[in-house]
């Protein structure tokens, strides 16, 4: 993934996955969460989601839930992942602040 962790900029997909996994979810629920949150604008293919979940797991930003009774594998955002998400929120706030100054509140 092209996430720039140092500069803070995450891809939209990464940020949404981190947010969706603040509460534990399996793959299908993550997909639904992102579709619902964006009104269908962002729709992830299963293969792409699979790759994204694996790469976020390698980075240590999400982890599989230890104890879940169900058959499906559930993931949850780690402490590190939440730090990254907070930084991204701060970066976006800064960006939105500057954009408001220039464009105005109209939109």
């Amino acid at each position, binding site marked *: *993934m*092209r996430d720039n962790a140092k500069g803070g900029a995450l*891809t*939209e*997909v990464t940020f949404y996955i981190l947010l969706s996994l603040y509460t534990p979810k*399996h*793959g*299908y629920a993550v*997909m639904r969460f992102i579709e619902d949150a964006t009104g269908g604008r962002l*729709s*992830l*293919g*299963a*293969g*792409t989601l*699979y*790759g*994204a979940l694996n790469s976020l797991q390698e980075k240590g930003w999400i982890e599989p839930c230890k104890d879940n009774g169900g*058959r*499906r*594998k559930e993931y949850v955002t780690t402490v590190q992942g939440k730090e990254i998400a907070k930084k991204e929120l701060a970066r976006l706030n800064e960006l939105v602040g500057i954009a408001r100054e220039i464009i105005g509140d109209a939109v």
Partner: protein
Amino acid sequence: MSKKCYRFFGGLLNMQADWLNRMSGKGYRLIRTGKMLYEFEEGKPNEVSYCVEFIGEKSKESAEDYSRFLEDMGYRVFSKNINLNYAVGKVRWRPWAERGGRIATNATTFNRELLIVEKENDGKPFELHTSYEDKEDYYGNLRKPWLFLLLMFALVSVAKHSVLFGVFALVALIPALIYQVQILKIRREARTQEW
């Protein structure tokens, strides 16, 4: 009522998916696959959509993990061979595969290079790969075996001064080029779009 069809598509993944989707349009839904066999049951037209996915580069573990993930997403998954393999030796060397998948045998992805993925239609298009980065990776995986074949045929052709192997090399060049064009197109689009 089941209907049996015998087809072989080899590496023509889109053609295979298109045919399965046409069958679904006529109300036939896949229940079983064999080496050349596709068995369907009759139902309502357009109940399901199909994608055909290449997983020959995956190790046994990651191939199983991936198809379990797809099943958890609510899809039905069938495995399929990409070659006919009438040879006796059921072992293949795949230097282009990921770690753990480079020696393919009957117990791993040998003769299970493809996944046919079936989704119940819900009005949305069925795509497994949606981000530019992921598409680029996927087409890269499809290109690798063809580049390998191209290299091997070219080497044999030069070493043995064989025209026949030269022709084989040229044939392997075609799909390698097709995937290369796809990759370049995706890269160009990715420059102006985030995903």
